[in-house]
C-alpha cells in the first residue's frame, strides 16, 4: 500500500510539473475561483459592518413627564435594560437635552434667542433606547405601554421614525437575502468553470489514459495520479489566492475603509487569516479532487 501511494504521488507530481500549459490554466482558473469564494466571505464581513453601522444609528426616544425624578428614570432604565430585545439605554436629562439643542443650533441665533425668551427649559428628559434589531422596537414599545410606566411616559418618537425604521429593516433583510443568493450563484458558476477546466485537462490526457490501460494499469493506478494532480493544483491555487488577496486587501484597505465607514478589510483579513487559508485550501483541494474524480470516471468504465 505504501509503495502504491508513493508511486501514485510521484506520478501525479511528474504529470503536474511536466504537462505544463493545461496545468497552468487549471491553477489559474482555480485561483480565480478560490479568490471569488474568499471575496464573498470578505463581502459578507463588509455588509455586516455596514448593517451594524446602520443599526447603530437607529434608536427611539421615550420622553417622560416633567415631574419624573432621576430615581424614577433610573428604575425605568433598569427595567428596559433587563429586556432581551434591548441593546442599550441612555438617559438624556432635561439639562442634557437643552445643552444638545444649543450645541446643535449654535449657528442659529434666532432659535437660541427664542429659548432665552421662553426663560425656562422647555425640553423633556428622555430615554434613548437601542434595540438589538430594528424590528424589535414595536415589541419594546408594547411592553412600555402595557406596564405601569405608561403614566410617566409623555411621548415616544417611534411613530415619526417608524417608516424609516421599517424601510431600513427591509433594506437590511434584502441585502442579506440578495447577498446570499448572489454569493450562491457566483459560487456555483465559479465551481462549474473550475470543473470544466479540469475536465478539459483530463480529456487532453485521454490518450495517455488509454495507453495506461493497455499496459495493464489498474483503475486506481490511473485515477490516483490525477487526484494527486488535482490536489497539487488546488493547494498551489489556494496559496497563490491567499497571498494575492492579502496584498490586495492591504492596498485597498484605506479606500474600502472610506467607502464602508470604518470596515478595515486588511485587519479583517489578518484576524481571520488562518481560518480563511483553511477554507481556501479545503475548497481548492476539494475542487481539484472532486472534479478529477468525476471527469476521469468515463475513461475508466471498461
Amino acid at each position, binding site marked *: 500500500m505504501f509503495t502504491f501511494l508513493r508511486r501514485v504521488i510521484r506520478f501525479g507530481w511528474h504529470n503536474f510539473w511536466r504537462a505544463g500549459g493545461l496545468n497552468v490554466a487549471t491553477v489559474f482558473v482555480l485561483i480565480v475561483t478560490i479568490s471569488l469564494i474568499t471575496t464573498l466571505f470578505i463581502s459578507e464581513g463588509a455588509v455586516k459592518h455596514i448593517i451594524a453601522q446602520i443599526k447603530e444609528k437607529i434608536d427611539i426616544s421615550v420622553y417622560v413627564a416633567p415631574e419624573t425624578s432621576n430615581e424614577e428614570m433610573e428604575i425605568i432604565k433598569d427595567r428596559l435594560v433587563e429586556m432581551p430585545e434591548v441593546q442599550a439605554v441612555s438617559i438624556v436629562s432635561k439639562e442634557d437635552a437643552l445643552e444638545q439643542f444649543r450645541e446643535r443650533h449654535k449657528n442659529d441665533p434666532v432659535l437660541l434667542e427664542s429659548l432665552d425668551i421662553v426663560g425656562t427649559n422647555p425640553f423633556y428628559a428622555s430615554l434613548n433606547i437601542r434595540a438589538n434589531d430594528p424590528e424589535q422596537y414595536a415589541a419594546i414599545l408594547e411592553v412600555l405601554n402595557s406596564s405601569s410606566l405608561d403614566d410617566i411616559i409623555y411621548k415616544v418618537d417611534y411613530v415619526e421614525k417608524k417608516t424609516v425604521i421599517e424601510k431600513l429593516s427591509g433594506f437590511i433583510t434584502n441585502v442579506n437575502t440578495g447577498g446570499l443568493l448572489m454569493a450562491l450563484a457566483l459560487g456555483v458558476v465559479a465551481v462549474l468553470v473550475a470543473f470544466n477546466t479540469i475536465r478539459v485537462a483530463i480529456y487532453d490526457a485521454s490518450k495517455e489514459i488509454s495507453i495506461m490501460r*493497455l499496459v*495493464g494499469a*489498474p483503475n486506481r493506478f490511473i485515477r490516483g495520479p490525477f487526484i494527486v494532480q488535482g490536489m497539487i493544483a488546488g493547494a498551489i491555487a489556494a496559496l497563490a489566492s491567499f497571498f494575492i488577496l492579502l496584498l490586495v486587501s492591504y492596498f485597498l484597505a484605506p479606500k474600502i475603509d472610506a467607502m464602508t465607514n470604518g470596515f478595515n478589510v486588511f485587519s479583517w483579513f489578518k484576524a481571520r487569516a488562518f481560518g480563511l487559508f483553511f477554507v481556501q485550501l479545503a475548497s481548492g483541494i476539494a475542487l481539484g479532487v472532486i472534479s478529477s474524480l468525476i471527469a476521469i470516471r468515463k475513461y475508466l468504465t471498461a
Partner: protein
Amino acid sequence: MIFFENISKMYKPDTVALKNVSFQIGANGNEFVSIVGKSGAGKTTLIRLLLREEEPTSGKIIYGGKNIAEIKNKDLSIFRQKIGCVFQDYRLLPNKTVFENVAYAMEVMGATDYEILRDVPRLLEIVGLEDRAKHFPLGLSGGEKQRTAIARALAVRPEVIIADEPTGNLDPYHTRDIINLLEKIYDLGATVILATHDKAIINSLSRRVITLDNGEIIRDEEKGRFIL
C-alpha cells in the same frame, strides 16, 4: 493457448470487419505468427478483440483456457499485464522518460523498486537504448520510440507480444532492427503476433502467416509468404 472460435465483428450500420474467423496460436509452444492483409482487412480489429478493447459480435476468444469476454472489468488489467503491446504510433507516455515508460509497466503490476532498478537497465540494453534512459519520447527518433515500446512490452515478462504495424513509421534500417528484436523475443520463449502489410518483412521471416482479406482468412501457412 489462444483460440479464435468463429469470431465475427460488425460495426454499425453495415460494416463487416471480421467474418467467422477461426484459428489458434501456440498450440505447440510459443509461436511467431504474422497476420497480413491490406488496410481494412481486419488485422487491427483482431488485435483489439484479443486485448478486449472491443467485444466480438459473435464467437469466442479463449486465452489460457478462459473466454476473455468473461473476464470481469476489474480483472482486465491483470489480463492485459500478460500481453505486451507494440503499436505503429508507439503509444509512449509523453511526460515520462524512456526509463520511466519502461518502469511504468512494472510499477503497475507491483514490481519492487529493486526489481525495477535491476530489470529496466537490462531491458534498455537489449533494445540498445541505455544511453537514452533519461530522454523524453519527444526527443527520440521513430526507431528509438519503437524500441522503448518494445522494452516496455518486455518489462512485464509477457507470454504474448502483440505488434500492430510496428514498423509502419520506420525506415528500412530501423524496420530490420525492430524485426530482429521481435525474433529475439520469440527465441526467449514468448509468442509473437505481428500484424503488418510489409511484404519484405514477411518474406524474410519465413514463419507462419495468416492472410486476411475483407474480414476472412484466405490463407494460413506454416512457412508463409506475402501473397495478396
